[in-house]
């Protein structure tokens, strides 16, 4: 039995059903006041079950606002987000979020084990199962014997792995990631990108990843949603027909990669 079947939970669902569907999403801050600011003008796209979708856009285009709307942390001014068919009210149970800055989202007062245990405790998983599950996810992200350490005793890359492990602990159907590799160095970044591709392959999980890095988006995604300058609108949704499994050296040096990259670059840089 493969590892994926052990870890993956939830009932299987038909492939044509959208995991996440975003319709005419708009968000305005301080509506009706002098400080009114439109962050998202009109964003629509779908994410199929098992798909890997990256959202890219120029800096300051409202990516973080979008992510907060997609996760249910922020309610949109108008439009609708459906997760597994139901309109979003709060953060859905089967959705996990990985934030950009591990040092701000991992709890520095808890050991790695206890950090990963938190969502399991919330879900009411009993102690023995919890411990087994913690070992499992730490292994899945390639972390061995660090459970007793504190996050701040680990390198940046390892900390982000802990954050990913914690997000996977509750066996989510979808992983939502906000520039998850922005605060680590280049080499670690490649490692983490490959890690997330492997995790996705093994667990069959759906991933939506927000980033400003075009190369990263092309390398990771099945489809890329390109946003224009603030206030955000979808400029184009680009298919990425690069074959799997992808490798940093092979994939990135292919002609197809170069063409996609250039196309995206043009979309992002032109106003």
């Amino acid at each position, binding site marked *: 039995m493969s590892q994926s079947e052990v870890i993956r939970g939830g009932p299987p669902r038909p492939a044509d059903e959208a995991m996440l569907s975003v319709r005419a999403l708009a968000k305005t801050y301080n509506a009706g006041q002098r400080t009114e600011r439109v962050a998202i003008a009109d964003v629509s796209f779908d994410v199929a079950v098992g798909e890997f979708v990256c959202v890219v856009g120029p800096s300051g285009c409202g990516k973080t606002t979008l992510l*907060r709307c997609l*996760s249910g*942390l922020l309610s949109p001014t108008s439009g609708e987000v459906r997760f597994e068919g139901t309109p979003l009210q*709060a*953060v859905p*149970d089967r*959705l*996990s*979020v990985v*934030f950009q*800055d591990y040092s*701000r*989202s991992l*709890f*520095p*007062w*808890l050991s790695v084990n206890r950090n990963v245990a*938190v*969502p399991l*405790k*919330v*879900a009411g998983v009993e102690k023995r199962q919890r411990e087994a599950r913690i070992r499992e996810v730490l292994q899945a992200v390639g972390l061995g014997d660090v459970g007793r350490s*504190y996050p*701040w*005793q680990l390198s940046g890359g390892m900390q982000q792995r802990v954050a990913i492990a914690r997000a996977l602990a*509750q066996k989510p159907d979808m992983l939502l990631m906000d520039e998850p590799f922005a605060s680590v160095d280049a080499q670690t970044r490649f490692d983490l990108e490959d890690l997330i591709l492997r995790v996705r392959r093994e667990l069959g999980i759906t991933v939506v990843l927000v980033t400003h890095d075009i190369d990263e988006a092309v390398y990771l995604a099945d489809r890329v949603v390109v946003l224009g300058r603030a206030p955000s609108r979808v400029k184009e949704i680009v298919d990425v027909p690069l074959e799997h499994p992808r490798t940093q050296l092979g994939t990135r040096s292919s002609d197809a990669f170069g063409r996609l990259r250039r196309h995206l670059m043009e979309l992002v840089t032109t106003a």
Partner: protein
Amino acid sequence: MTRIWRLWFFALVLVLWWVLSAGSRSTFFPPLQKIVTQLYELWIVGDARRELWSSLGNFAIGYPAAGLLGIGIGALLWKFHRVGHAVSPVLYFVYVIPTAAMLPAIIAVMGIGSPMKIAVIVLAAIWPTLLNTLDGMRGIDPVMLDTAKVMHMSAVRTVRTVVLPGAMPQIMAGLRNSLQISVIMMVVSELVASRSGIGFFILEAQQRFAITEMWTGIIVLAVVGSALTFLFIAVERVVLAWYLGARAVEQKG
């Protein structure tokens, strides 16, 4: 401990005091030897122990009460920040009035027993903890709170797992200030009006012009104050082990 050599100056000060005061005829500065002898007779084996326990008893109720109330009220003001904002001018005014100034009025209302002393300790010592709790909780990274939300934490669990530990470094700083104020107010309440406690002992010795006895009281008070502080620091090292560790890593890197 390789740092023990640093205590040489401390030892020197004590030795100098001992030697220089040895033949002292000054009314105000009796020989240290005489003070130490009396200190032993009064406070280690003698009746003055009663005063010590009386003071510490009030402290043992007043300080924890001030700490818990400070954390509790601080947390409520953080949670209901509009209320917190509306009451802040009144709170601020009560906070800046030196509690000692209210002491005679408190005595007029509550008499001179233990309840008055405890009330004085609580009223004065609550502020540092309250304000630091409020500050610490306000300073919690919003990403942490988002993390709690995406994990579906209940309100109680969020407070227990995220908010309290996150604000703990500042809460502890507040509790440390509260501790020092508690000790001071413990004595002040006894110095103004009382029939028991270290403060009463010192005042009474002073009025009889028993200067050596007064010195023993001062020294006991000094020792009690620093013993409590060092005890607190020991507890703090355990409670904030993660914070001190993280900070050390940060400073190295």
